[in-house]
């Protein structure tokens, strides 16, 4: 049993560090500039540090798969607060294109996506199709000459819909086919007259997602990814590319570190809140849960590297993390007391986290849907279609 990465990776880490140091922060000091970010990511691709699993022909750096190197790169980028070239929607569409796209589609879409010149939104959910996604009704019809699709319907909760240039979406193309068999995966330029994007205000007050209306919107026939009516399989394959558990774990670690800092900063009864036995004990209890997640993630990663079965843990990190984030934000609430109601006060970040931690229980499959998946895949309980685990 061994937890460090081993000395053979020390030189690699040094190289990554030196690269970041030489390229970030940018010379002009502008951390927000899209150009600077793009230049950094492109230099990272040249060095083989970014977009490692993507072939050179499509703008990636085509490196042999190595979970440990990938983790070292991620750690060093995070430490330096340097861009990692990841845009949420883009990370979801690229693996789909690689697996299902035609050669032309790969050539055309992947490289600009990696550069961040195209920003993708995910158009899956609809007002009447959430957990039961296959109930979706937005329809696309091929024109008589077969040159383009005409799209009508509505998507909702589309993250960054108003910032995106394009959408990858699921639409109904075979109205007479069975529920799951009538769906296709389409790419659409959403900056066109037939598309209306209406930002929705989230409970945090921010405009992070949108409604998207299609009114005779158009997209060329060759924007279909995979076969007609096979869209359900196309999206299901993205499950394999779900982001690594390590990212989940790092996010919770940093939230926990902030919580400890908060408990030391805030005074209660004339001493730091962290000295209060109830707060102290709950903080330690949260840490125990976090350590469980952390070391089980290391275990899972090691098992992956060695081709061993990870076992039931595989399906668990998302709900575990969601519960943990809720528990962390509730302890923060207990620590800040009256500041918990003051949206203009110094603890706004924690009020927001109290809410944002909830979005994790909804977005990307609700916690209940995750529980259904755990029940079936990890506990081997009998399949139940109405419970949404494996349509």
């Amino acid at each position: 049993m061994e937890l460090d990465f081993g000395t053979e990776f020390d030189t690699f880490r040094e190289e990554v560090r030196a690269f970041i140091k030489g390229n970030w922060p940018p010379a002009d000091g502008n951390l927000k500039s899209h150009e600077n970010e793009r230049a950094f990511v492109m230099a990272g691709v040249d060095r083989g540090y970014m977009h490692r699993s993507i072939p050179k022909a499509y703008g990636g750096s085509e490196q042999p798969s190595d979970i440990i190197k990938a983790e070292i790169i991620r750690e060093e980028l995070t430490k330096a607060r340097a861009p990692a070239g990841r845009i949420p929607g883009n990370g979801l569409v690229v693996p789909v294109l690689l697996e299902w796209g035609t050669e032309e589609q790969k050539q055309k879409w992947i490289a600009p996506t990696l550069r961040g010149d195209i920003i993708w939104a995910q158009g899956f959910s609809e007002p009447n199709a959430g957990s039961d996604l296959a109930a979706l009704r937005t329809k696309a019809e091929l024109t008589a000459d077969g040159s383009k699709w005409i799209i009508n319907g509505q998507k909702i909760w589309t993250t960054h819909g108003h910032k995106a240039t394009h959408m990858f979406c699921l639409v109904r193309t075979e109205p007479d086919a069975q529920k799951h068999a009538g769906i296709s995966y389409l790419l659409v330029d959403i900056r066109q007259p037939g598309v209306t994007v209406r930002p929705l205000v989230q409970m945090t007050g921010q405009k992070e997602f949108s409604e998207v209306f299609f009114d005779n919107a158009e997209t060329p026939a060759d924007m279909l990814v995979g076969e007609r009516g096979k869209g359900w399989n196309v999206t299901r394959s993205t499950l394999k590319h779900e982001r690594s558990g390590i990212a989940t774990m790092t996010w919770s670690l940093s939230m926990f570190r902030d919580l400890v800092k908060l408990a030391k900063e805030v005074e209660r009864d004339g001493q730091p809140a962290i000295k209060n036995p109830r707060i102290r004990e709950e903080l330690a209890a949260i840490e125990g849960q976090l350590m469980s997640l952390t070391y089980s993630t290391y275990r899972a990663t090691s098992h992956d590297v060695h081709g061993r079965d990870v076992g039931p843990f595989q399906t668990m990190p998302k709900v575990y993390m969601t519960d943990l984030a809720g528990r962390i934000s509730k302890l923060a609430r207990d620590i800040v007391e009256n500041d918990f109601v003051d949206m203009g006060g110094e603890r706004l970040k924690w009020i927001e986290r109290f809410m944002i931690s909830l979005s994790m229980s909804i977005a990307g499959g609700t916690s209940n849907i995750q529980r259904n998946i755990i029940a079936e895949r990890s506990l081997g309980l009998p399949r139940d279609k109405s419970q949404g685990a494996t349509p």
Partner: protein
Amino acid sequence: MNFLLSEEQLALVDSVTNLLRDKCDPLRVHKIFDALGDAQFDAELWSALCEMGVPAIIVPEENSGLGLELVDVAIVAEALGKAAAPVPLLGHSLATIAISLAGSDAQKSKWLPLLATGEALGTVAFCEGKSGWMPDEWTMAGLNLTGTKTLVPNAAEADVIIVGTADGLALVEKGSNYTTARVNSADRTRPVDTVTFDATSAELLPRGKETAAHLMDAASVLLAADSFGGAEHCVNMSVDYAKMREQYGQAIAGFQGLRYQLVAMAMATEPSRGLYWYAAHAWDAIPDKSSHAASQAKAHLTDIYLQVTRDTVEAHGGIGFTWEHDTHLYMKRAMLNWAWAGTPSRHRLRAADLAGW
């Protein structure tokens, strides 16, 4: 990074598991549990484990042991926890660790070979009063010990007792002046005694003072490992029962409410494996993190184990509430694991201190 068990470790777990399948099925555990009179361990099973070399795992090679690590004992403890095995591994391993880390050469060469084969049985006496588990709470002192230690595993049978004292760790041999009284403990798979010392002659372990906290950490790790094994078994038992038991014309596994209860049990249990592994590994290899990790593992896993056994009873309905079912064996082991070496709450506060909060 290689955070996984080696081929040798997997083979060790396999051979212990096979032995347990043979010699420690639930019927056997019930039989031991229900024996009339004072609770007793399963001498036949223990000697089979000794033959296999289990007590030798943590004994250094120069003292006729296998020279392996705590993690190796812990994965065996997990397997024993899974089977609710009525054997004295906990006290015996801790006495062995105490002598090998803190003993003089003479003490080591006298005791370790005997402990390695199981010819002698060892145990540890830590707790004073209802909760005085930690070294700074030990008040007995000197080489003539007077006072009472509680929840001492198998003191009546032990050939050697390592006693936690204000001076560190003392060694008391069978035949010295002490009396034992078997506690009517809920867990009849691992009997415990109250031991009363009365000017009992003892030897000091030379490095006892420096070793005491580390020894308590080993206790925490082994209890966490046993708890993981037990909790995992309870989850599996409940899942299997849900697939088999029918109500309303279908397997109860089809009811979403019950499914979510089972998921919650698995979600509490499965990820905690990494924590107990880490605590064992830290004890062996990361000295500055070891106490913190041990307390976290002890708190987290014994807490979960007890809760999971409650959920297991609920998931089984009426049959789960009976004496003849396995559920209560596990709940009672979980009760001892929860209390022994200090409650989760005390360990969380210790972890907080150690984190420098």
